[in-house]
């Protein structure tokens, strides 16, 4: 018995010494040219697939992925954040990217393998040791669905052409803020100082948003100030669809009078710019307003304690009514 233990202890000692030598003396070759030993790739890839399948969110959490605004937003983000590795549909990945180990799959190949909820998990979490990064704003898994919507559209070959993001910085902003509704706000009704402040907050993470953090990080600091003025409204007015007048009435009552739990919105968001505390929200797209209210309600946005306190008691129906009311209110 004693001999068995002794043998095991000696073997363990050799093993430990070997491990120290490999790590400490750099014996393991990390060259990407060498590749993995036979079987290792299979083990890694199978682990990857099963890990994603196990953790993917339920599709019940997903918004309507066929929403053209959502697809367009996802496409715009994809154009700057994802094309460097995965390429645009129908285009080639650069030779350098193809030389990565593991090589990032081309978008056409990537979407073929995964269901939407699995794509959501991958885009949100990234993949360890593969070069695939996680979503830049940890709390904003809601934004990830826009990219998933675009990828799902690519899968059925129904995706819009990617916007051209190679022009000047201003045209880069207007690509979304003047041509899209949905979750993208219009900027023409916002004060330049307010826009500048929010851009700073997107950059430093105070206002978490993966999409806007990516966009703001591409803007040279010197050009920031020039970006805060000179926007025009949306090309089309999207929120004119008929809506239940009872819902609208409830939204108006909440906005004007509030309740014993909910402060009046217009005390900070009404009136002229010089005399109000908050940004203009009248005329913003309905989907944008809804998402913003949910973010303040959930405390994901918390930089302004007043707005967080104001949204804390909002119910889902309150949010719907307020979004319907303010999106139809003339700016």
């Amino acid at each position: 018995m004693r001999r068995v233990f002794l043998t095991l202890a000696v073997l363990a000692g050799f093993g430990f010494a070997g491990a120290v030598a490999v790590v400490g003396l750099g014996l393991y070759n990390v060259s990407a040219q060498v590749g993995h030993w036979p079987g290792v790739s299979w083990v890694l890839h199978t682990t990857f697939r099963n890990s994603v399948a196990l953790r993917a969110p339920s599709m019940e959490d997903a918004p309507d992925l066929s929403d053209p605004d959502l697809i367009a937003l996802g496409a715009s983000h994809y154009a700057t954040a994802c094309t460097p590795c995965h390429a645009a549909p129908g285009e080639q990945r650069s030779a350098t990217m193809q030389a990565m180990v593991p090589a990032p799959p081309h978008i056409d190949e990537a979407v073929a393998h995964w269901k939407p909820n699995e794509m959501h998990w991958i885009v949100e979490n990234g993949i360890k040791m593969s070069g695939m990064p996680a979503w830049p704003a940890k709390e904003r898994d809601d934004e990830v669905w826009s990219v998933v919507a675009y990828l799902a559209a690519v899968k059925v070959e129904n995706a819009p052409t990617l916007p051209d993001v190679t022009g000047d910085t201003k045209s880069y902003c207007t690509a979304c803020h003047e041509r899209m509704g949905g979750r993208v706000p219009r900027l023409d009704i916002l004060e330049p100082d307010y826009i500048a402040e929010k851009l700073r907050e997107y950059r430093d993470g105070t206002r978490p948003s993966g999409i806007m953090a990516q966009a703001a990080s591409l803007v040279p600091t010197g050009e920031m100030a020039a970006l805060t003025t000179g926007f025009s409204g949306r090309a089309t007015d999207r929120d004119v669809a008929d809506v239940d007048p009872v819902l609208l009435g409830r939204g108006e009552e909440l906005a004007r009078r509030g309740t014993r739990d909910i402060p009046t919105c217009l005390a900070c968001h009404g009136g002229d710019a010089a005399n109000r505390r908050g940004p203009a929200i009248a005329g913003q797209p309905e989907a944008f307003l809804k998402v913003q209210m949910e973010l303040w309600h959930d405390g994901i946005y918390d930089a302004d304690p007043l707005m967080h306190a104001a949204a804390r008691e909002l119910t889902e129906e309150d949010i719907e009514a307020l979004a319907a009311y303010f999106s139809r209110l003339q700016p």
Partner: protein
Amino acid sequence: MGARSGEYGSLRRVDGIGAPFFVLGLPLFLSACSGRQSALDVAGEDAAAISLLFWVMFGAACLLWVAMNGLFFFLSRIRPGQFPDRYVQPLLIGGGILLPTVLLAALLVWGLGLLPDQRAPGDGLRIKVTGEQWWWRVEYWPEGAEAPVVTANEIRMPVGERVEFLLGADKVIHSFWIPALGGKMDMFPGRETRVSLRAERTGVFRGQCAEFCGASHAWMAFETVVMEPDTFDAWLEAEAGDALMPVEGAATRGAALFLSQGCGACHTIRGTEAVGQVGPDLTHVGGRLSLGAGRMGVSTAGFTRWIGHTEALKPEVQMPSYDFLSTEELDDLAQYLVGLK
């Protein structure tokens, strides 16, 4: 035996020191009986009834205490071991069963008899009080009124009239208690309870939430001002009116700040654009005796402190501290609010 006598000796010494302390300390204890938040410093009919019940019970308890200890002393020290058996049964039945039954039944009947008085119909004025975390929403409904006079954190009532209080609560249970005027009554979310009070002398009495209701329960109080009926009517008429428009520089700036900082989202100041319902109505806040539901007195310095450090002064309060405002801005706001008489 020596050890035991030693114990007695030390006990006696303690008594010897304790007695003068007790005599000297008595006025200190008794001083708690007077004051504006004391059930023993009676200012109302209902408090008087409760107070009488208390003193009778207290007196009887003293008598019983003396009798029981006297009996014990007699049996253990004066005639130890000589209690005749034939007295045992009558004493047990008489003193242990009959006497407490009769006394407690009498107290119960007396006490229960006081209960209907708590809800005696009023003389006309009804005041609806809602317990919030941690302040009081107050509505005056004079007889025949179609809309209430809304105010907060202070009760005013005419002397000599029975006023009916309709009590409710927003989220958690509170309890409405003005000790100098009467008994307390719990306030429940979703249910209306009633209590009626009749003040017998004018003065200012303190009310306090008497049911633990969260972090700032102890800071949930209010002043009750009992006034001559004429003065009260004049006050109520003024209270029903809109807020005074400020005329002087700082207060005018404060009024503009009040709106531009969004204060009106939660507070109403009648006659202005501020129509929020979340927090206390501030239309005449400068005319009140306390600020922050009994937290501090009304003064410019008080308002400045309150607005700038709300969360420190009242833990877990819903109102955020406006610590981002400059000293000048806070002062302007305070000037405005203090002028809202």
